[in-house]
């Protein structure tokens, strides 16, 4: 059957709503979107090509700079893959500190994603509230790790720094404030009538479509797939008793609400970890040797997998990274964007999937 296409409208690569360059080509009839295609290729740096043949110490810093938003999880998955490969033990306290820092990173990433969405639907008040509360999370990250972004906190056999002095009291006090504020913002988002008009029932990703596209992370969990959370298979998370958040609607509203609820869940995880912390060593040492492993972890955007092969000197012979955004972008352009009623919703639907172009192209 012949398709009636009025016009093919490109959005991007430099677009006020997108933080990173990506081009969406929408085939439209009037403003109704029939099909969409995402064109990438503006950010390809060839990180995996640089990594090959380099010692693991250098690859550690490169792995962190695959994504500047979720840098802690890239560091964590890469180091845990090396540890699993050469069976390096991790002290109890270090494992819990890793989870604390990872959850802080997840919180700031989710808050940033929700900020972008609120900014895109022109709810600037809520967006600015969220960006303000994010600075508190960044303060705590900086207090613990020494840097706001790309902190290289996790090393084989442990972590770099212990909590100093009254750090845990500061962290608990900040968590109390963040929890109170985030609960308020969640209520604002959940009950706002104008937000509902721009979010409910728009960009629907059904469970079948999500499974077919291989969607991961909050995008999949908003379509009723809580089992996609890789944290369920991580030993430290299993020990502290973690249960994933999920919703069934599958629209923009559900995706943002899942992120709000995950921020609150992360606060709970950090509190549990702080309760479980016992005095002890934080760094046991250990040098990665030869081996080959595929290892996965849960990034803020979904499942992140590393495949690593090293030689006896610890040089990385082969590495390949699978980041979550590539699946979510596929799900976005094949399922969510099709049938969107107006072009204004295209950018907000794209942002609601939280695509990270730097991760995707590396």
């Amino acid at each position, binding site marked *: 059957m012949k398709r009636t296409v009025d016009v093919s409208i490109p959005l991007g690569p430099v677009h006020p709503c997108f933080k990173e360059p990506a081009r969406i080509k929408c085939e439209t009839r009037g403003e109704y979107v029939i099909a969409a295609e995402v064109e990438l290729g503006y950010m390809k*740096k060839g990180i995996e090509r640089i990594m090959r043949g380099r010692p693991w110490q250098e690859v550690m810093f490169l792995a962190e700079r695959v994504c500047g938003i979720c840098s802690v999880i890239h560091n964590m998955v890469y180091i845990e893959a090396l540890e699993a490969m050469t069976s390096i033990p991790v002290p109890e306290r270090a494992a819990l500190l890793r989870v604390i820092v990872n959850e802080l990173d997840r919180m700031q990433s989710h808050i940033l994603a929700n*900020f972008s969405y609120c900014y895109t639907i022109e709810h600037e008040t809520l967006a600015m509230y969220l*960006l303000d509360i994010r*600075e508190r999370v*960044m303060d705590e990250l900086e207090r613990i790790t020494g840097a706001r972004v*790309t902190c290289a906190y996790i090393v084989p056999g442990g972590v770099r720094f212990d909590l100093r002095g009254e750090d845990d009291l500061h962290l608990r006090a900040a968590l109390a404030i963040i929890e109170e504020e985030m609960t308020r913002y969640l209520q604002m988002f959940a009950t706002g009538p104008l937000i509902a008009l721009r979010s409910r029932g728009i960009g629907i990703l059904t469970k079948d479509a999500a499974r077919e596209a291989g969607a991961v992370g909050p995008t999949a969990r908003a379509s009723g797939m809580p089992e996609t959370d890789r944290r369920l298979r991580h030993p430290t998370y299993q020990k502290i008793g973690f249960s994933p958040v999920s919703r069934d609607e599958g629209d923009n509203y559900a995706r943002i609400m899942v992120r709000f609820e995950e921020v609150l869940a992360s606060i709970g995880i950090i509190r549990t970890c702080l309760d479980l912390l016992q005095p002890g060593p934080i760094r046991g040492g250990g040098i990665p040797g030869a081996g080959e492993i595929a290892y996965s972890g849960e990034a803020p955007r979904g499942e992140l997998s590393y495949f690593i092969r090293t030689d006896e000197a610890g040089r990385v012979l082969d590495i390949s990274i699978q980041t979550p955004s590539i699946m979510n972008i596929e799900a976005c352009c094949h399922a969510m964007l099709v049938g969107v009623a107006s072009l204004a919703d295209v950018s907000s639907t794209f942002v609601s999937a939280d695509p990270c172009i730097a991760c995707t192209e590396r």
Partner: protein
Amino acid sequence: MTLLQAVKNFVRSKSIHVCYVDVGSCNGCDIEVLACLSPRYDIEQYGIYVHNNPREADILLVIGAFTPGWEDKLRMIWEKIPDPKAAIAIGNCPISGCLFDRPHTLIDPPAAKHIPIAAQVPGCPPRPTEIISAVLSVAPLVFRDYEVAKR
């Protein structure tokens, strides 16, 4: 200095429109530029507005090591910005390529090869306060008495 020039100087000092373009960074510097918008740093109290539209921008923030996808596009964006204008390189990547400038890489730093860069803010990533102070210190140098200097 004419009265017209004085008026222009005053108006330009309170209204600096910024466009940022990401030519292949890791997102870290991107997010630090976004953090400048937050109420804590509040970039708008200095009269700086982030529009992300080159046609109404005064200052272009270049973020990221230069990737092949931007070969002539960065220059096109630069040419779309009306005079007077300035470009600021944010982070180590547009200055030197940082740790991406290694054998087998695809990038082509520095950004100064492709467009004229007025100021550089090193850091991986730089803090939001450093970005704001760079914009504020470049703006008067470029915009004050622009017509006089051009003649």
